[in-house]
Structures are given as C-alpha cells and as structure tokens.
C-alpha cells in the first residue's frame, strides 16, 4: 500500500477512552495518537490494560466514553467487523488462528474485505515467498503448526487484509528467543513497507528498538510517553518495565 505524504493529521487518534468490564474500570481515560508510517508501542505490566485498549479500538469492547478517530473518521462504537472492514486490523494475543481450517483458508478468510480482488493472488504468493513453511503446509490444518508458525500465519493473515493500521498484541509471547527475533524482523519489514503499527509488547526492550514513539500504560492510565530514545534513557521506566 502506498504511504501518503506526511500530513499533520494522525491516522489514529484516541481521546479520553474509558472502558469497563462490568463495574470494573480497566481504562481510565487514555489518549494517544499514531502518525503515518509510525510504529507506536504500548508497553506496560500484566493487567495494565493493553489488550483492553486494542479490543476497544477494534470494536470488540464498547467504550464508556471517549472517541476513536481513524483516518479522520469517527469509528467509536462501530461493530468489530465494520472496523476491520476499514482495514484497521488487529492480530490478537495468543494463537488466534482457526485451528480446524487449513493454512491456506486461514490466509484467505480475511481477504473478503478487500476491493482489489485481482491483487489477492499476488499478495498470497508474496506471503508464501516470505514464509516458505506456510506454503509447504498450506493444505494442513493450521492447528498442526508450531507456535512460531502459527504466529507467522496470524500476521500473514492480517497482511492479506491490507492493513491501513496493524495492531499487534504481544506477538512474541510464548516464543523461543530465536523466534522472537524472527517476529521482530518481520515487524521491521512491515514497517519498511510503510504500514503503521501499534505494537503491544511485554518485551519492552525489543519494542523500544523498533518503535518510533512509546506510551507507558499503568493500571488503565498512560503514565509516560516519549520517543523510544527518551523512554530508553528514563531509568525509572527501565527498571519498572524492562525488568
């Protein structure tokens, strides 16, 4: 996808978002923005509200108050499939591939949101070129893949949907160190194609290496923000979140 020339408008602007599970408030009014071509990382401890943030943006959870604007359109309160159809794509945490479908079916199942049907096949070939393992196993059930392969499949499936913003929820979770490096190499590659990314990570050290801008989330609030270098120099944050 061609990246538009830099404009002053953020592609995603979240303002004062509050989300609750029943009577428990998980997000306490958070605000942040993502600019064209940026990788923005959301870091924070377990239970800080990172997944809640992504799921509220994706329309899986309904915000109590607040506003979400995507490419200058107010998408607050839209259902999840309508948000996905605007090419705001989330790769959820855990192995969220459809285990009883084939690898190929998993890759293709989101492509129905695309209008450029003619390019779907080309993109599929591109994915297979990038992930030869997926091509070899395209007829196998996705559930039979290894953890790393499943994560690649999940990202490949998202790319087949031509994201205008890709939200990744802990893509390196539960993977061996070698595979973690592979995942981050993939993220860098996606970034170089000009696709903006909202990256949620517990592996903050890795996230900081790749991110342009970082927000630190703690108990449903943004407690710090800055460029990756600024955050990296802040020893308090380092000790609190980088372990």
């Amino acid at each position: 996808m061609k990246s538009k020339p830099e404009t002053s408008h953020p592609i995603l602007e979240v303002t004062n978002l509050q989300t609750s599970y029943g009577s428990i408030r998980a997000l306490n009014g958070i605000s942040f923005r993502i600019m064209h071509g940026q990788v923005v990382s959301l870091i924070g401890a377990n239970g800080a509200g990172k997944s809640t943030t992504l799921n509220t943006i994706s329309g899986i959870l309904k915000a109590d108050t607040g506003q979400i604007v995507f490419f200058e359109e107010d998408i607050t309160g839209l259902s999840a499939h309508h948000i996905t159809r605007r090419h705001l794509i989330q790769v959820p945490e855990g192995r969220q591939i459809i285990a009883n479908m084939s690898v190929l079916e998993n890759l293709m199942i989101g492509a129905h949101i695309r209008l450029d049907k003619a390019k779907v096949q080309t993109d599929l070939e591109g994915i297979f070129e990038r992930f030869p393992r997926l091509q070899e196993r395209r007829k196998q059930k996705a559930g039979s893949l290894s953890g790393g392969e499943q994560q690649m499949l999940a990202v490949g499936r998202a790319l087949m949907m031509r994201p205008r913003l890709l939200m990744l929820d802990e893509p390196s979770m539960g993977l061996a160190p070698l595979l973690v490096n592979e995942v981050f190499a993939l993220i860098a590659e996606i970034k170089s194609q000009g696709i903006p990314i909202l990256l949620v990570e517990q592996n903050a050290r890795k996230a900081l290496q790749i991110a342009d801008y970082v927000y630190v989330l703690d108990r449903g609030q943004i407690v710090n923000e800055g460029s990756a270098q600024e955050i990296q120099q802040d020893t308090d944050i380092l000790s609190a979140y980088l372990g």
Partner: protein
Amino acid sequence: MDLLTSTTVQQIINAVSVGAIYALFALGYALVFSILGVLNLAHSAIFMWGAFIGMLALDPEKAPILIAFSIAALLLSIPSILLEKRIVQPQLLRLPHQSQRFVGLIVRVVALYLLWQIGRPIYGILIGILPETMIIPAIIAFVFSVLGGGILSVILEFTAFRPLRARNAARLAQLVSSIGAALVLVNVAQIAFDWLYNRTEGYYPRDVQLLPFIPTETWIIGDLRITPIRVVILVIALGLMVALQYMVTKTQIGQQMRAVAFNQRISSLLGIDVSRVYIVTFFLAGAFGGAAGMLFGMVFLNVTPFIGESIALVGLTAIVLGGLGSINGAVLGGFIVAFIQTASVTFGGSSYRNAIVFILLFLVLLLRPQGILGQAEENRA
C-alpha cells in the same frame, strides 16, 4: 433370490430412504449447534411445519389458502422490516438504556397486532381472487416447505435466541427459550389444523399425484418391490446434503460459518458479520428441517401437529451419535438410526421403534459421549 434376502434388501432400501430424511433433519440441529453451542429444541417444530406446509400445498382445496396467506405475509413483511430497521431501531437507541427493552417490546407487540389487522383484509381480497382449488406441482410445494422452514427458523433466531445472547444469557436459558418456542409453534399448528381440517389427528390428502412424471405403481424387480417415491426422496435428500457440503467447504459464506463456529471474536476481527452468519445458518437449518418434514409427509402420508416429537428423539440421537455440531456426523447418525429402527421393526415389531432409539441415545451418551466422528474433549484443538 430367496425370500429372506429379498426382504433384507427391501428393508435396506426402506432404511436408506428414511435415513436420508433423518439425516436431513439432524443436519439442522448440527448446523445451529455448531455456531450457537446450544441445541435448538424448536427444530422439530420447524420439521412439523415443513410437513404441514407441504401437505397444504399438495391439497388442492387448501393450496389457495396457503398461497393467499404467503402473499399477504410477504407484502407486509417488506415494509415492516424496513420500518423496524430505519425507524424503530434508531429511535429506540435514543432512549435511555434501561427503558429500551421495555419500550421495544411494547412497540413490537402493537406492531404485530396492527400487522394482523392489516393482513386479514389483504388475505380476504387475495382469497377472493384465487380459484377455489389449485393443483400445485410437488416441486413447488417442496419450495414452499423449504422456504417456510427457513423463514420460521430465522424468526426463531430473532425472537428466541438473539435477545438472550444480547444480554449474555446462560446456555440453559437459551435451551429453555427454544422449548418455549417449540410449544408456541406446535400450538399455532394445532389451531391451524383445527381451522383447516376440523381435526387434530393425523391426516394427509389422499390421491394427490405427488409428481406427475413419477409412476405411482410399485416397481417390481424380481422379488423386490420398490416405491418410486422413495427413490425420488433419496435423490432429493442426497442432493441437498451434497449441496450443503459444497457450500460449507467451498463458498465464502460456508467458510465464514466454520469460522464463526470456531470463534466469534476472531471472526469479527476478520471482518465477518457474525449476525449475518447466524441468520444464514438458521435459515439453512430451517430449510433442511422443512425439506425433511415435507419428504416425511410424502413417505408416511400422515401429518399431525405432533409429528415433531418422535423425530426430535431421532434427530437428537443422530447428532449425539455423530458428534454434536459435526455435519458429517449428523448425516452418518441419521442413517444409523434409520437402520437400527428398521432392524428392530423387522425383528421385534413396530412398537419398539422409539424405545430402541431411546436406548441407543442412552448407550451412546454412556459409552461414547463425543460421538462417532467427534473427538474426545481433551483432544480438541
């Protein structure tokens, strides 16, 4: 061929054609269960309505009534659906959250009453225009049953299931809701039966020529006696099953159905409109139930408002046998039940027909609760 083997072959032919109907019916349970995780216990009432609608369509004296009613319902449904989507729902959303349900209920009850009042004169005019007797080809009657079953099933989704899902009701609540819906459907059928035929016991219009191009006399091949209608039924049922198999594995909506059955949250993140998949699934389930009902009526030539009861047991046994929610399992289970039933009738007499199914259900639940094709719970991906 000696007598024993020809009887056996005869029985196998009967079992296969009845099994095809059972399989068709059980598929409806499996389809809905796969996405809902709940048995739709009103499915047997849809089956009965399929049989009833098919019978009305084949009865020259009642066909005009069915047609006038259908046209009137169709005429009223389009404006009322538009009204609901464009005006009622948006206005309801403006109300405070707590009062939405209550006001919504009142508005809809009033709307239904008004529809009934407007519908009756329309029906009256139509019945005046139509001839007093009409002969409808069996294939058109079949379409009526299929569409009728499908539409009733979608209405069930909107009235008995969706409102409960919206408030995250427990599965048991949905199950109970489907029982309630079944009672309503059977009661309405009783009223209609009484009104149309002045009776509630079994009936089927005699002497209707089911399909003009199918010979009514029995084919006799050697010692074998084959009723052509059974062959036709088998072909139709198998055709529908093949079509479903194709749809589920090869088409986009079929893929989406499988995705929703696997996980609705992931599906919605993949841009799949989950509510639409529900509607399609309920329609298909009802269409298969309606088709099964119509074919059942044509084989046994006996329809009552209560034929859903014994078929429910058969269908539930079939899907438990095949593995809950498994489409292939439902088909396999349907045929197995038919074979066991036929065998029990041959060797033990027809009074054991239902008892043997019940014993079978009991044994499966005891010995292999995941069914024949189902995986054990812990192996499930």
